[in-house]
């Protein structure tokens, strides 16, 4: 296979990079890990004449905790950087676990969290857990920096609210109370599979009573989406199996899945019901009360 030739820029600073992006507008694409970009270019799905590489720009790959801010993840951090980060494993293991179910090891060594967000694939695996944890994005452009909640950033299939001259630089997980969070992915094989359905949950609970909940769905709408109806149903309630079933059904009704070569909309909808319940049980450390003989999914 081959890629049509293009002009390649490797700016040394963010400023230079955004100037190039501003100059070339729609002709240019940002290159980080390339694991989404290169297959699309080889497939002929993307014909770009200019690539602006982030390779030489430093300070975009670190994962650190900043007092007063929270956990700051550089957009160039690879998925395996997230998997192996002791900081994340300590504070937000659900992010490490979510990164671990993506693609395969080789792709995880190159693909970046920033790329996973900006590519805005409806079935992307990181946005759900990040939105559940109220992630805030830092964007750098010619007019300076701005911060945007990830929740408002994904606006359509492969479309996000990034301006032409902007680069996503950091993802901030603000300090927050959390009883637990997790992301469950259902794919058609155990590696190298897109999510057919993914459900992330982040709850604040006192015992079995939910004070706050975020439930975020992947692969069942034009973008990653919050199941707000399901969240509301849960808030302030004490969790029982019948309530979980109702929450699952509500989430299933809220989502807008499509049928494609991988599965039908009907199947996806029912999987949302099932996995909403399972992720909540997991996060609240409840036993699988109803289903015997059902495998414990763990992070996958």
């Amino acid at each position: 296979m081959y890629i049509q030739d293009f002009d390649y820029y490797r700016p040394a600073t963010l400023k230079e990079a955004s100037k190039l992006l501003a100059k070339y507008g729609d002709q240019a694409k940002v290159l980080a890990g390339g694991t989404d970009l290169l297959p699309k270019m080889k497939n002929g799905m993307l014909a770009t004449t200019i690539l602006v590489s982030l390779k030489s720009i430093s300070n975009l790959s670190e994962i650190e905790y900043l007092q007063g801010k929270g956990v700051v993840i550089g957009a160039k951090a690879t998925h395996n950087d997230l998997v192996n980060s002791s900081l994340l494993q300590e504070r937000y293991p659900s992010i490490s676990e979510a990164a671990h179910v993506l693609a395969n090891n080789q792709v995880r060594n190159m693909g970046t969290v920033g790329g996973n967000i900006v590519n805005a694939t409806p079935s992307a695996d990181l946005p759900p857990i990040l939105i559940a944890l109220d992630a805030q994005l830092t964007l750098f452009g010619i007019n300076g920096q701005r911060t945007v909640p990830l929740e408002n950033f994904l606006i359509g299939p492969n479309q996000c609210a990034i301006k032409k001259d902007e680069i996503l630089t950091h993802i901030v997980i603000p300090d927050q109370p959390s009883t637990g969070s997790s992301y469950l992915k259902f794919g058609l094989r155990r590696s190298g599979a897109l999510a057919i359905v993914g459900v992330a949950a982040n709850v604040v609970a006192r015992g079995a009573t939910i004070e706050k909940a975020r439930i975020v769905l992947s692969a069942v709408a034009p973008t990653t989406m919050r199941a707000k109806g399901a969240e509301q149903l849960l808030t302030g309630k004490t969790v029982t199996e019948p309530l979980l079933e109702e929450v699952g059904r509500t989430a299933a009704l809220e989502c807008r899945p499509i049928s494609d070569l991988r599965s039908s909309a009907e199947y996806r909808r029912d999987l949302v019901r099932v996995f909403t319940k399972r992720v909540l049980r997991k996060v609240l450390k409840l036993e699988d009360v109803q289903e015997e003989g059902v495998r414990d999914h763990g992070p996958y």
Partner: protein
Amino acid sequence: MQETYSAIGKSVPKIDGRVKVTGQAKYTADLKFPNMLVGKILTSPHAHAKILNIDTRAAERLPGVKAVITHKDVPDRKYGISPARFDENIFCIDKVRFVGDKVAAVAAMDEETVYQALKLIKVDYEILPAVFDPIEALAEGAPQIHEPYPRNVNTEIHQKFGDVEGAFSKAHHLRTDRFVGQRTYQCPIEPHAAISMWAGDKLTVYASTQSPHYFQYYLAREFDLPMGNVRVIKPFVGGGFGGKLEPTGLEFAGAALARITGRPVKMFYDRHEMFAHNRGRHRQIMEITTGVDREGKILGVHANFIMDGGAYTSLGIASAYYAGALLTLTYDFKNYKFDMLRVYTNLPACGAQRGHGAPQPKYAFESQLNLIAKDLGLDPIEIRLRNARKPNTITPNDFKVNSCELIACLEKARQISGWSEKKGKLPQGRGLGIAVGSFVSGAGYPIYRTNLPHSAALIKVFEDGSAATLYTGAADIGQGSDTILCQMAAEAMGFNYEKMKVVSGDTETSTHDFGAYASRQTLMSGAAVKEAGEMVKKKLLEMAGEMMKVDPTELDCKDGIIFLGNNPIITQMTFAEAAREYFVRNGPLAGRGAYTPPKLGGAFKGAAVGTSPAYSFAVQISEVEVDRETGEVNVKEVWDVHDCGTVINPSLLHAQVHGALYMGMGESVWEEVVFDPDGKILNPNLSDYRLPTALDMPQITSALVDSYESAGPWGVKEVGEGATIPTMGCYANAINDAAGVQISSLPLSYEKVWRALREKEEKP
């Protein structure tokens, strides 16, 4: 039969293991030649269309392009791999018949230029109505794909043995069930590639092939050359599984481009082009009617199948016959009727894929047998024991079965899987399934009609006796034939495997052999090798007899040591000493051998297909867990018990079982080639065509039963395809046991299981 062998029966490391793990092994696309050009084929974007005009001028003008060819520049002789149906052209002449059909080709200085040139070729098409389903293709008024074949019937089979209607009328229980098998693709990890070059009138082609001989034969035929002027060389091959048995367009187009440019031309397919070329497993619609007596003994079977053949024949005729032919092997019944229609459609052609037409029918038959067992309240193993074939019997379609240890396999599988302890006692959502299979050890008749031996072998001992070279046309495509044939050569000569060299897969320097398909090489190539080795040994012992002043019939040779039968320690000479002296006195010490199977099979139409000197038998049991909420199928453990005769290399044998089972597994649950409404493949990639990964595998136990096959050298039979055959039925039966649902079409996908479970819940 327990015998102590010195070279066979040992798990020696592969002779090519080292070069493969160091990256030194060269596969076709790794090769480089001076002045070499790169070439690719332009394919059709339409499923069915007339070619009105092809304008290659813009492509020809692109700097770096050396030649652009269409049907005008190549022989128009129709070809194929099945002589009964030569229906392909190197490039389509009047119309294209599937998305991916061959239209033109380009040779240029580098890859990028080739890709760009392909885009510049302008083809004017008149789109024709297309048909993508075999039943629709048979209907009145359907688009006709090949003129000579009305109603798009490519192959029609009607075979009748015994009295099936009579058997059905006497049956205590009669069932008719319908199953559908899906289209899958071999998907070897190495893409097809070929490098062609001419020297005067002589054509040399390096190709990723399973059979240098068939490639040579068909290239010679197409270009009107004597076979001696065509040399086909097989470098290392990254898997074939049936898809590399016939020349693709790459060899023909490459040869034409190489002739025109006067330079070597390397041609290759990208992964999505491999999918489009296909020649994989047919989609089959299978209706089976079986009648049994009160005890569950099968009285008669009627198999009524339709195959979606795609746009060309490929190896499809054989697959069509095999689909029905092999159903008589595992169970002993006298009355059998087989009807088959292989139908043309405007989809990529289907050919032969591991198991050659037999796995899906076995899925159907084994699933139905399970349903019958359930209806009669019989244990699935018990009903199989009652019907299992015994050794030295003949099937109703005239296949002579010598060794057959199916019953022993069933007993052993029952024991090692813990069937009796587990069946019916597993936790909710878990189940056990069983299926059996059988396969040929080489086809009784070659692909084209000829009286040539099927295999030949030469062995030359090195002048000082420190090594020996085996020359064999057998094709090692990863299964390890180079290794086991060297073991066999060493055993036959009384020499050491470690000192063997091999020259194989080159029509000029090795010997005639039909190549790797129908699991033939261990038995057939092995028989030729054994004969050659025994000839060497005989000459050697005669020489040693002279040197030791001893009667040669009292001598024997093992592990490179010649000894007197009754005095092995004292009276000794080395193989090397005797070999060297032989060379000094007589010239090269060499042996030759050849193998032709005995005349096999009956006299009815299609009797040849399914004949074989020997048949392997296998039983598979799987334990499966079904997630009742999602339908997810989790295969926990699989036990495979094989009857494959004497084992030449245990570790390689079990490795083949693992691999064959793996392919059956993929096709059971995960794999399917799917199309859009215009006949274009939706998933021609390794992301949406889901090969199981290392994380998807169950625990696998591969076991054997003692067996000896009189028709095979040292008692061998096949194993390469036998473990693919039971798998789909095995999993279907396990899912039925685990979740109480019968999935009647492949793949047994999670969504299908989910749907079946939901439907079951809704029933009162």
